[in-house]
């Protein structure tokens, strides 16, 4: 498979070299009332890499993704995406600048078909806004067809042709996860945030999903931030790993470095924190 998902993409070239800094978060702190979800965490994501975020339950991984795509607004710190520094992201801005994501607890449009779900991923690549699209039906319809073509390619790529017209609420869990990945890919993302894409899958499904993530990264050069609990998967897929525990960063480096980091070993073995 070497067709580009969207050769004419608006986001194909952002002037950042492969390996250059795509995103860095600095000194992020986030709390909910008394609960500190993230404390003073900094790390970066380089263009073209697969960056894993790992850590025990409640470590703040999902919260971190929510900060990056603007669902959560941190009390402290800054987020720099493609050289633009800001105190907080907004979901709409994040999406239109090419940050796409999947959710730990699948968030698909359950009543809609696979095809429609993935089409919504193209939203930010459509010209005009929802209002002008509603009024100028003709041009919008032509554009729709072009997007449809891209979406069909994604459907082929993810091997879900057979469920194109099925309402996703009826699909088994593993396939729903795949459709959700498809929706994120449809945005032709500059940064793809995956929150436990393999959780709850059997071995075969995990292997498929790993292959898709790897292919997306290698063939389209898509930068990926991946939260995953399965250490085997993390070690295989990722270029670099950041480790969170109780909202703090306790490790950052290549899979090998992280694996040999004493703090990380302690956190995973449940050594008491004091």
């Amino acid at each position: 498979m070497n067709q580009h998902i969207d050769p004419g993409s608006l986001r194909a070239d952002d002037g950042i070299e492969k390996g250059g800094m795509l995103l860095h978060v600095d000194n992020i702190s986030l709390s909910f009332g008394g609960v500190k979800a993230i404390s003073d965490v900094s790390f970066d994501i380089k263009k073209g890499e697969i960056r894993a975020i790992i850590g025990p339950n409640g470590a703040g991984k999902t919260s971190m993704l929510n900060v990056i795509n603007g669902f959560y607004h941190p009390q402290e710190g800054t987020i720099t995406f493609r050289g633009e520094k800001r105190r907080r992201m907004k979901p709409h801005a994040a999406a239109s600048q090419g940050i796409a994501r999947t959710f730990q607890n699948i968030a698909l449009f359950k009543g809609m078909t696979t095809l429609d779900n993935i089409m919504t991923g193209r939203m930010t690549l459509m010209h005009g806004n929802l209002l002008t699209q509603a009024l100028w039906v003709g041009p919008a319809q032509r554009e729709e067809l072009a997007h449809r073509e891209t979406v069909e390619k994604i459907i082929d790529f993810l091997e879900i042709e057979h469920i194109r017209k099925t309402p996703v609420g009826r699909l088994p869990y593993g396939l729903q996860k795949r459709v959700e990945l498809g929706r994120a890919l449809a945005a032709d993302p500059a940064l793809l945030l995956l929150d436990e894409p393999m959780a709850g899958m059997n071995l075969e499904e995990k292997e498929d999903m790993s292959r898709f993530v790897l292919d997306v990264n290698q063939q389209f050069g898509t930068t990926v931030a991946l939260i995953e609990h399965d250490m085997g998967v993390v070690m295989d897929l990722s270029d670099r790993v950041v480790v969170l525990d109780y909202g703090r960063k306790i490790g950052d480096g290549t899979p090998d470095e992280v694996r040999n980091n004493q703090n990380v070993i302690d956190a995973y073995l449940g050594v008491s924190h004091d």
Partner: protein
Amino acid sequence: MSPDFLNFIETVLNGLMTGVMYSLVALGFVLIFKASGIFNFAQGVMALFAALTLVGLQTGQVPFAHLINAVLGTDVHHWGPGLPTVLAILVTMLVMIALAFLIEKVVLKHLVNQEPIILFMATIGLAYFLEGTGDLMWGADVKALDVGLPSGGSFWWEDVTRNWAPAGSDYFGMYIDTLDVSAAIIAVVLVVALTLFSQYTATGRALRAVADDHQAALSVGISLRSIWVIVWSIAGFVALVAGIMWGAKSGVQFSLSLIALKALPVLILGGFTSIPGAIVGGLIIGVGEKLAEAYVGPLVGGAVENWFAYMVALAFLLFRPQGLYGEKIIERI
């Protein structure tokens, strides 16, 4: 067919026609509720406001004439013969879209993430505001609305049905109001158009997405604020259609806003989130109320039509609070 049976059919048909009107108003509610979780108390007033504006434009009334006269001591009332009906309808639609923009800018934008009850109260405020504005702009007198739809009983249908009864029986045929028939046809066209729009356009897809999962919709970059403007514009359009129908039938008057109260039992029956529910619910209430009036009315001294819908709604609240098609909703309002 026996005259009794034909009378029964006539009652059902008339019930269906009335039901279509209820469905139309309920539809406006459902659209907004699905997309934003807001129970729009102002839906009925929007229908009134649309109808007032339409009549005002059609007859060439000067908006705010009373106010202008009171302040400037002038005596303006009409600026001319008025706009042709089609143009007046288009301009009214533009006014409803502008209203949707205003509501988003002035009210909704500032109430994002608030409790549903707060949004509900905001729509109550909106209802009073719109009612007052309508009064101030166009005056409080009852106005006739004529958009050129046929009205009056259909002689053709009367003749056709007369022959269905056995020869010699004193059956004079069914009465059916042609205005009701046009209203029903227009309502069907409207519902089909809305369905096509939501199924086959990118904007429609975005609307469905937002109704399905807010957070996922945000993550793909759907702007909730645009969606709100669109949904309120569509609800404004539905209100305009409903306003035209009711206005043509019984004149444009402020009691029109009370049709919202009739929509409530329809919504309880059909479920607040279901478009088919709103339609079926409206038809059931319409037919049920006419049948009850015809067959139960004589036993209890009439006026069953006035409370029947609410009794059905009450029964549903007790035994099936989510309605015929709705999802669990009662805790949301």
